[in-house]
Each structure stands twice: as structure tokens, then as C-alpha cells.
């Protein structure tokens, strides 16, 4: 779409062209919605998978395995084929109540009014500064995402021998990125006793010749102009220093929800994304949120699936079939346990008819075994035994009957966790 083709009004404006945004757009067109525009601030659509030069992507959507860049291209092609307009180099700088977007393009500032706005702005990694790491500000400190973009999109490399902080999936992907750019990481450092990602991946660094140090915490970055080394401390309290010319901070994802935060939408301090109901509606019903902006962090395929579901809810909303559109009364879900990191959705919108089962997504803050209990003032409503690890998706399925009884009572909900005695 050229800039002159950017309209002043549309049915649905989608902010962000990653898997969730493109899935929402494509499904909306399939459902017959006329004007669907995806606003992308970069010069290329596709979102984070563009710079994830590894597999597997696309199993859920296309029943085959792609590398990230090819997967992103396939999603974009599908969307365009379906009649979705993608406005590139178009940044939403802020938004207002009811779906009015303030934009910046190469031509300067402009506005777009949409009936429905979808936030699919994704996630990013927590940088060094937000982790309050000791040291000066030498060159060579970056997140895995920044490294991936530099390597895969710009054919540049910022260092030769970095350390990798963290052991989430993306941390292993950083090793693959390094390998691609002939960068040799000196070590992978994990604060916990074991790798955060699936345990079989623990062998991967070793296979790539990268030392894996668990129970080890980064305490200082050395260097003034460029990184010259790091100091770490292990569980026994022993301090070690080793040389490196870069530090890759991986994982600790945070939703890129700044637009919502700066705007009028309610933000959930647990997920750090916009608070939504079971349909993905934000506190202003003209705004929906989908994909990783809802919470850290899910696979591209999961975000794509969410996008498709969100599109269906938006279609209902546009045709006024989504109950509670006018007057949003809802039941809040409050977390009362330090074990539970977040719960999405954060509230359940009341419905008088067409009540459906609801899936709650939660994550744990640390490994735990016990019973998850959902209750209201009148007592326990639902419970499940779980044994889980942090950074793993846990789904709580509330049946249609359970949801019905929740709505009949109309009382706010509390999620608690009862640990089993070890």
C-alpha cells in the first residue's frame, strides 16, 4: 500500500504485522470485513520471525516447517492475497478513545479513525538497563533480538566472543544466530539451577562448544569503550571473571504495550500487557489486543491462533453480536499467589446468551506442584492439580457450565495456589 492510499477511515486497523496481526487481518477478510489495514512501523512486514533465522515455524498454520524469515514472508503473502492492506513505515505515535490513531509516515503526521483497533505490537526482551546490571556503558551489550536483526537483516556483527545471559528458548536461538555469523560465544549463564527452556536443549550449547554455567549470576560488565569482560558469581558465592567482547541479554520478554500504557487503556501489572476480557477486548471496547502484547511470551504459531480467534470476536463485535458491547459489565480475576505470574484474560465480560467455554492462560514464577483454585465469595468454583515450571504455558479450561455458574453468581474471582507439602 502506498502512503497516498492510507485512508482516513477504516473498519479495522491492526497495529503490528507479526503473526498475530497478520492472522487477525487475514481472518477478518475471510469473514468479509471490508476495510482491514495493518499498520507496520518497519519498512518490511512480518514481525519478529523475520529475524529468527531458525526453525520450526509454521507447523500450526501451514502444516509444515519453515525458518523464521520464510515463514514471515508466507504470512505476509497470505494476508495480501486475502485483500489486506499493509501500510509500511507507518508508526502509531498515540491513540485516543474510540479508535482514533495518530500516525507518523515519511510524509509527516496524519490520523486514521477505525471502528475497531487491534493491538498486536508483540514483545521485546528486557534490556540491560531494566535489569539494573552493574558497569559502565561500553559497546557490545545487546538483546538477542537486536543481535538477530543485525545479523539477519543488516549482515553485520557487533562482537566476536560474547557471553549469553539466560537460557530461555531465545537464548538457544542466539547461539544459532552467533553460529550463522561466525560469532563464538564464550559461555551461556543461567541464574537458576537448570535451563529455563526444555531440558533436552541443555545439550545444545555443549554441542556448539559453548560453556553452560547454571546457578551463576552476572554481577558486573567490564569495559568503558567496548566490553572487555564480565564478573559472575556462582551459588557457592565464588566470584569469577572472564574475558569477552559482548554481552547478549536474552529473554525476560516484556509486552511492547507502550501505546496502551501511554494511552487510556488499562494495563495489567502482572502481564504488563493491556487487560482484556475473554474476547480480547481492552478497557475501551474499540480496542482489542492479541498475540504477545497480551503477555510474555508465546510461539508464533500460538499468536497466529489467537489472531484468528480475535478476528472472529471482532467480526461479531462489528455486527453487534458480541454481547456486552454497549455496557461492559465484567467479573475481574484477581491473582492471590506469588507463584502465579499472570492470568490472561484478566476479566470475564458478562453475557446473557451464547455463553462459551473460556480458556485462561497462566504462567508460574517458579517450579511448583500443587492445586490451582478459582473461587469467589461464595466458595470454590474450579480447581486443578498442576505440576509446572516457569515460562511454560498452562491452560485452565473453564467449561461452558462453569462459566454459566460464574456469570449467574456475578462475583469477582480469585485464583490461588495451594502447594503440596514436599
Amino acid at each position, binding site marked *: 500500500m502506498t502512503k497516498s492510499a492510507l485512508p482516513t477511515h477504516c473498519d479495522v486497523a491492526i497495529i503490528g504485522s507479526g503473526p498475530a496481526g497478520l492472522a487477525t487481518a487475514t481472518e477478518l477478510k475471510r469473514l468479509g470485513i471490508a476495510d482491514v489495514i495493518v499498520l507496520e512501523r518497519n519498512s518490511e512486514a512480518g514481525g519478529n520471525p523475520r529475524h529468527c533465522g531458525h526453525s520450526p515455524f509454521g507447523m500450526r498454520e501451514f502444516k509444515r516447517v519453515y525458518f523464521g524469515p520464510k515463514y514471515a514472508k508466507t504470512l505476509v503473502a497470505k494476508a495480501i492475497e486475502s485483500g489486506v492492506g499493509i501500510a509500511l513505515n507507518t508508526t502509531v505515535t498515540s491513540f485516543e478513545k474510540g479508535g482514533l490513531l495518530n500516525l507518523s509516515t515519511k510524509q509527516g503526521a496524519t490520523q486514521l479513525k477505525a471502528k475497531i483497533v487491534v493491538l498486536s505490537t508483540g514483545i521485546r526482551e528486557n534490556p540491560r538497563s531494566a535489569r539494573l546490571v552493574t558497569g559502565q556503558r561500553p559497546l557490545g551489550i545487546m538483546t538477542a533480538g537486536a543481535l538477530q536483526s543485525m*545479523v539477519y537483516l543488516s549482515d553485520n*556483527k557487533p562482537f566476536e566472543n560474547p557471553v549469553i545471559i539466560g537460557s530461555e528458548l531465545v537464548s538457544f536461538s542466539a547461539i544459532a544466530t552467533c553460529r550463522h555469523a561466525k560469532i563464538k560465544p564464550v559461555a551461556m549463564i543461567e541464574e537458576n539451577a537448570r535451563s529455563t527452556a526444555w531440558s533436552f536443549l541443555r545439550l545444545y550449547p555443549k554441542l556448539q562448544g559453548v560453556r553452560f554455567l547454571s546457578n551463576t549470576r552476572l554481577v558486573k560488565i567490564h569495559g568503558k569503550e567496548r566490553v572487555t569482560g564480565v564478573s559472575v558469581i556462582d551459588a557457592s558465592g565464588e566470584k569469577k571473571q572472564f574475558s569477552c567482547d559482548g554481552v547478549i541479554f536474552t529473554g525476560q520478554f516484556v509486552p511492547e504495550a*507502550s501505546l496502551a500504557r501511554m494511552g487510556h487503556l488499562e494495563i495489567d501489572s502482572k502481564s504488563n500487557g493491556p487487560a482484556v476480557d475473554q474476547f480480547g477486548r481492552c478497557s475501551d471496547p474499540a480496542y482489542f489486543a492479541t498475540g504477545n502484547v497480551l503477555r510474555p511470551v508465546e510461539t508464533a504459531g500460538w499468536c497466529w491462533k489467537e489472531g484468528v480467534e480475535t478476528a472472529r470476536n471482532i467480526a461479531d463485535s462489528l455486527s453487534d453480536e458480541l454481547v456486552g458491547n454497549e455496557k461492559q459489565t465484567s467479573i475481574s480475576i484477581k491473582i492471590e499467589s506469588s507463584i502465579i505470574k499472570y492470568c490472561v484474560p484478566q476479566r470475564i465480560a458478562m453475557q446473557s446468551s451464547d455463553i462459551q467455554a473460556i480458556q485462561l492462560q497462566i504462567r508460574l514464577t517458579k517450579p511448583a506442584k500443587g492445586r490451582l483454585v478459582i473461587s469467589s465469595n461464595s466458595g470454590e468454583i474450579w480447581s486443578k492439580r498442576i505440576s509446572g515450571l516457569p515460562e511454560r504455558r498452562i491452560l485452565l479450561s473453564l467449561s461452558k457450565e462453569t462459566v454459566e455458574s460464574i456469570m449467574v453468581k456475578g462475583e469477582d474471582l480469585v485464583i490461588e495456589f495451594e502447594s503440596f507439602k514436599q
Partner: protein
Amino acid sequence: MARQFTLEGASVLALEKGTDILDGASKGNSAILHTGFDAPTDSVEHACIVAGYQEYLDIRTKLKLPLLETGALVTAWNQSEENLLTGILEKAHINGVADAKILSAKATRSLEPELSSSVNASIHVPREYVIDPWTAPFVYMLQALENGAQLLRNAEVLGGEYEGDAWKIKTSQGIAKGKIVINCAGLYGDKLDEILIGKSSFEIRPRKGQFLVYDKAASQLIDSIILPVPNEITKGVVVCRTAFGNVLVGPTAEEQKSRDDASVTENELLALKAKGEEIIPALADVPITATYAGIRPATQFKDYCIEAFDDKQYISVGGIRSTGLSGALGIAHHVFKQYQAFGKSHAPVSSIAYPIVTPIAQDEKRDWEKAGNEGIVCHCELVTQREIKQALAGEIPAGSLEGLKRRTRVTMGRCQGFYCSAKLSELTQGCFKQPLAKAIKKSSIKKADDK
């Protein structure tokens, strides 16, 4: 100084040992334009702040210098601090800040509703403002250059001699000559005195100050600069908005030996976080965007150490701490008067040139709002490609990432380069002494794209 002397008609050469100007103590300033309400009465510092404050307001529109008219609250959190407010108010009145007044806890919180309810009382100083520690001095230098001054960067002073009628200064870039030398070497002021005139009347005692920068969402929480009741050692931790729409919490006050190790440290940052959240509880829900530290060129004295040596045609300007930003223009006047006392005079520049400045402060019209901006590169701070190209060219081009950051704010936002580092590595290729990245040899890459 360069600006003042140039506009007064002197021919000025500024020597900077760093890759960029403002690369030393100045870059870590807390950015407040002080009225001088709490400065030592009758000190040189106070006189310079008062004069500098007024001139800043006089020239800011023409030079497009940022200003947030925030006002400040000196907040007392217990009875003993509250007891000190009357004394602070009296001093403010003596220092000519007549509009300062004491507010009750209720009045304080009606002005700043997000302030913790445990506040006892405060003094409101309505004309304490927030400016930007980078743009103002950068523009002073730009204006000096446009009116004939010269700037030599990467030029460290290695030695020099007064030869009876002129100075011969040996720098890492060759010999420079001048009729008079003004020492504005900040953290190395005493060292430079020693090199050039054999001794210094002051000793630099570096005092580090760490800061936390909160995300822009935090700026919705406060208007005023929130100051504590100062104690003997430090003015204490300040919470204030920045010209770029963030919120700053800091500084710490840590004596140290090193003049150039501006490390942040985890424990002190955590303590600042706790302190900030104690003052504004809602900060707890706002992400931290950045951390930094600055080093103040403190000395054994409370006041600035400005001393003129007629016999050597040398003026030493030392011990300029955080108030130096407010005081800069006033200090320049003060020093020029001492220069005149040497019997020097010039015909001032008759038609003053004004530099063209692209404003980067939040409240100004930014480049992304204008046509032809070439697209936004840094999404968090809304920095355009055109702004980056301009900063890499121009009269004082950025020679390092730090320099580019200061000129444009690029990578200084919440993602700290997650989204724009790659693009930036392309745009800055060949521009920096310390490059951001180097090209991967094409032959060694497997094309991941085609799988």
C-alpha cells in the same frame, strides 16, 4: 564560555580531549534550571545561577532551547525535616526567590496527588524548571562556531607555556596558540592547572551520582520537581520529569577516586528504585527505561573555584558541579568580566548568527511530524532517519554512539536498541571511531531466507 567570548568579539579556540563535547561531567547532569533558592547566599555560585537563569529564559526562544515549567517542591517526610522548612524558606527569600512558600501536607498533595501520603509538608518553588543538559550547551557551542569560534575535538592538552605575550599549548593534535587560556576542564581542572601554571588552588574530588530513568508513562504521575530536604553532604534524591517525557530518580552521592568510571551499580540502583517508589508509590508499576551515572567535579570547597591570574593571562574555572548547567551563562559573564579586568576589549559581533536546531524535546514539534523525515528508525524515542543523518553530518558531527544518542535520543528509549540497533549499524557505517558492528563476510553466510 566559547559562546560568550565569541559574541563579545574574541577569537576563540575550544580544545576538547574527548571524541565529543559534553562527554565528561556534563553528560550526567540532572537537568534542572535552578533559581538558586538554596544556593549559598552571596557566593559566586549563587550570582552565576541567578544571572544564568535569567539569560537562559531570555535566549531560549531564539535558540529553541527546551523548558518545562514544572516548579519544585522541597518535601519534608518527618517532623524534624518539617522543622527545617522555615529556614530553607527564609534563605529562599533572602536569595531573591520571593514566590517560594510553605504548603501543608494537604496542599502539597492537591498539587501532586501521586505523591506518597506520608509527606509532612513542602516548600513550593514555582520557578524551578526542567531543561535538557545536552541541547543547551550543545547549542551554545553551535552558536559560538557559527559566529567564528573553532572547536578541536580529540585534542588533549599535554603541556604549555606562557611566553610573555601569548600561550603556546601542546595538544595531542599539535600546537595551539592563544593570548589567554581559560581552564574549563571539569573533572580534570586541577590537573590542567598543574600542567599549565604549576599548581591548582583546588583539588577535584570526584563524586558519582547514579540515576534511574523511568518510562514515559511515569511522566503522567508528576508535574513538579520533587526535592528532599537537603542535608550537609548532599542535596539528596530528586524525582523529576525530563524534557524528553521520562521521569528521573537520582542522584546518589558517592565519593570515588576515579574521574572517569561512571559505573552504575546494582545495589545503589535498587536503593534508588525503592526511594523513588517511596516518594511516588505508582512508580512501582512503571518500567525502568535506562540507568546512568555522572561524575561531579566537586572540590574541597563549597563554592565554585574561579580564579584569574593576570601575570599568566590565565583564568581557572573549577569546581562547577550540578548547578553548572543553570549557571553556565552566568559563569561565562563572570569570567568575561575578569578577562576585561586584564584590560582586554573587543568589538562585539555586530550581527549575531543563530544556529538551526532540530528540537528533540518532547513538547517541541518533532521531525517525525514533518514531511520528508525518511521514516522513523528509533521507535521508542521517535527518531527519524533524517535526524540521524543530520547528526552524523552538521557542524559538530557525532563521532560515537554516545554522541549520536545525545544529539538524537536514538536507542535511549524503553527498548534500548532492541528494534533499531540493526538499522543503526547500517546508518553509522564508517562514522564512528568505535563502530557498532562490522560486516559479516558474505561468503560465510548460508542464506536462511530460502528455506
